């Protein structure tokens, strides 16, 4: 049970959001400096749990993403100040590498870039790639090494620390990342420090069996981190990790990237639209006029296209956006069927 595990942390480093988060006018402000010291203590605690625990940290910066630290590259790097005997060496390397690469990345930001959307998807996919590499290497090498437990793999998980609001345009890539995480059996945890509730990240945590926490007291971040996100997946099954009581399952439409309460799903490729369309923009399927008329007629009665209230999920098991399929002549049975699938890759096998 006590096996090494891998943790990938995605840190949201949006300058403007962190500025807002640190404002003293907030009830419980958390300035970036305080956040970083608590984060570093958490990362050290992760390393402290097991000598073979591995770690990678990705920073999501405006418009791009960067690797801030990884335990694989840390072994190679020579530290500049070797005379410091006061800190456990791995902690020292971790802390200084993190701070160095982070300040490098932030310094490199130009004024123009600061306005561009945060590169959350980039860092998420990069950490998935990293995990894929880590797990694959360990399986291929064990066949030759033959350690005591040949199938041993570091239990991988991802922790996203987010302060920015959802980027509606990134719905499809986020969903795709979730599906690949499911396939890799990676748990995605989300720690939301500041900003509005994130619909996409809620879904990410829910679908991968992780936990999503919106901090009531951001200044007590470290306690949240050690209680909820430090226990490895094996231990999580034994303790009651806080989970969401309600998950916002709304999806974003493919046409305007709006988050919709009720969408219209193409019955062929499962693309989501905020209003009935005669031709699916993704797979070019033409829909019969009759269905369109029927749907258009029922639409205003059903719901407004955009509402901000989150939809409490009726059954969290597999209910994705409440959507109505656009009928197609060939598949009459699907005509009015309620389709429960978020996108084209909708095979959400768990």
């Amino acid at each position, binding site marked *: *049970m*006590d096996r*090494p595990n891998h943790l990938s942390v995605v840190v949201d480093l949006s300058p403007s959001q962190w500025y807002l988060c640190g404002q003293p006018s907030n009830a419980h402000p958390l300035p970036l400096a305080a956040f970083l*010291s608590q984060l*570093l*203590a958490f990362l*050290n*605690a992760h390393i*402290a*749990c*097991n*000598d*073979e625990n591995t770690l990678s940290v990705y920073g999501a910066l405006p418009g791009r993403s960067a690797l801030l630290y990884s335990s694989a590259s840390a072994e190679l790097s020579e530290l500049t100040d*070797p*005379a*410091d*005997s*006061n*800190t*456990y*060496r791995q*902690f*020292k390397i971790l*802390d200084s590498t993190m701070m160095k690469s982070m300040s490098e990345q932030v310094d490199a930001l130009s004024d123009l870039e600061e306005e561009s959307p945060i590169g959350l998807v980039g860092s998420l996919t990069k950490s998935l790639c990293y995990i894929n590499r880590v797990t694959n290497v360990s399986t291929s090498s064990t*066949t*030759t*090494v*033959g*350690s*005591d*437990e*040949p*199938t041993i793999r570091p239990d991988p998980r991802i922790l996203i620390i987010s302060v920015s609001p959802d980027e509606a345009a990134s719905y499809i890539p986020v969903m795709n990342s979730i599906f690949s995480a499911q396939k890799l059996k990676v748990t995605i945890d989300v720690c939301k420090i500041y900003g509005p509730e994130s619909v996409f990240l809620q879904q990410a945590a829910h679908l991968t069996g992780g936990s999503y926490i919106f901090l009531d007291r951001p200044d007590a971040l*470290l*306690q949240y981190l*050690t*209680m909820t996100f*430090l*226990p*490895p997946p*094996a*231990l999580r*099954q*034994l*303790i*009651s990790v806080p989970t969401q009581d309600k998950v916002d399952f709304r999806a974003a439409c493919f046409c305007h990237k709006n988050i919709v309460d009720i969408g219209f799903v193409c019955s062929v490729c499962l693309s989501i639209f905020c209003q009935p369309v005669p031709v699916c923009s993704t797979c070019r399927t033409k829909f019969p006029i009759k269905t369109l008329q029927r749907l258009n007629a029922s639409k205003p009665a059903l719901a407004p296209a955009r509402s901000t209230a989150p939809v409490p999920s009726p059954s969290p098991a597999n209910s994705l956006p409440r959507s109505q399929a656009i009928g197609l002549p060939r598949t009459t049975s699907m005509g009015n069927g309620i389709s429960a699938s978020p996108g084209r890759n909708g095979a959400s096998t768990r």
Partner: protein
Amino acid sequence: MSSSTLFKATVNEHLENLPKPIQSKLYEAPATCLSIYRLLPPMAKFFIMSMLFHDKPVAYKDLERICKPHTKKLQFEAFNRLKALHLIDEDQGRSHLKLHPIFKQNFRDCLTGSQASNAFGNLCTTADKHQVDVKFLDQFASQKWETILHFMVGTELGVDPSKSVLSLLKLGGLMEGPGTSPRNLKITNEGFQFLLQDVNAQIWTFLLQYLNLTQDLNMDPVDVLNFIFILGSLELGKSYTVSSLSATQVSMLADLKDYGLIYQRSDSSSRFYPTRLATTLTSESAALRSPSAAMEHALQSTTTAEDGDDASAIQNSVSAGIASAQGTVIIETNFKIYAYTNSPLEIAVLNLFVNLKIRFSNMVCGQITRESIRHALLNGITADQIIRFLETHAHPQMRLLAKEKLDKKIEFDTSHNINTAGGAPQSQVYGENGTVAQHKLEVLPPTVVDQIKLWQLELDRIQTFEGYLFKDFQNQQEYDYLSNYAQEIGVLIWGDKVKKKFFVTPEGMDQVAIFANRK
């Protein structure tokens, strides 16, 4: 994992049995705090972490509530471990817990990186004139350690281990014989069991013996333990200054050098290098190699050339954890065993539990029989030790076959969308820890593994336990209430519903009594 948990148990036992003042003194060193934390079970780690950054005492109930109800047993074990180490204190009402203040402070400092100086050894800042690299250190360590193992099985290598090692071997009951002359010593049954363990466990066995020895020599056990734990957190390939060590620790250097844990060019040298044996003390990564691989390497280097820069020897020592890839043993489902080896150590170990029949120049054949296994079991070797030994020494071909089989099983499961791992298809099977059962790589034929275990069970028909009997219950309800609780925390040994009596372990007695009174 059995042997690594074995060594953990022994180290922990040693720590738990220390008197409280010594434990408190131990916690003054951050390196020790870190190492002790790493040796704890996951649940205990979680409890410590949740209390670490909490200033007020934490309610016992709150911690209990955070764990799922079916984990009472694990909780009980974790709390017991923590209490034995005095890492947690209860207040008068036994309702709130708090961490040991010194441990709390130091472990916190350790994580936040702000502790007193010289907590993790002083690195040498100046370059060494006689710079050594990791390869050299690995070779040095394995050579030292192998000499000891060779000596134990009586291989003629021409070099005997030092006096201190010999007396330690004798003291630990691993070898016996009159006097300390190297020729008079003979390996004991414990010695053979020792050989079956992996290097990490062997070193800990050694170090614990050493600790006992140092207590007789009036050395400060805190200093000694601290130094051992600091060694575990040092970095391979870096040199550290001797001057920052205490007098006790300096006197340990020579002994540790004999075991191959550290490298010091000469006794007066002002710096020392930890070897891989030392830096992996508190981790689970395979240290240098398993004994048989060590033997092979030694034979290679003695047959080719005795000098250090023999390419294959270096190659061998560099491939630290990979050493067991040269597994040699093939077991068939008919209990026949073939080992492609001519190493006296491995043959001697196999001879412990295999009825060896034929010996060729490069292999031995034998048969596992009930008698041969019983013989080993009666000598105090456990079935798990045997199975583990066979597993780590399995021929690569066996591993390959097992891997293919496993892949096929997983493929079958995924294509049919079921889980057959637990034996019951189409239902999610939960293992002991509440995890979904997964297919395991079965390197050894399952028939052989099961049979060896069954042979062990044969011997355990009567078992004795110490404990306490609960009887004279007022009514059935009361009996059920208490016995269920005892069952939940895993201390119930026996119970009879009709007679309304049950029996619990001595450790559980306290807990059950408190529970009964609380009601």
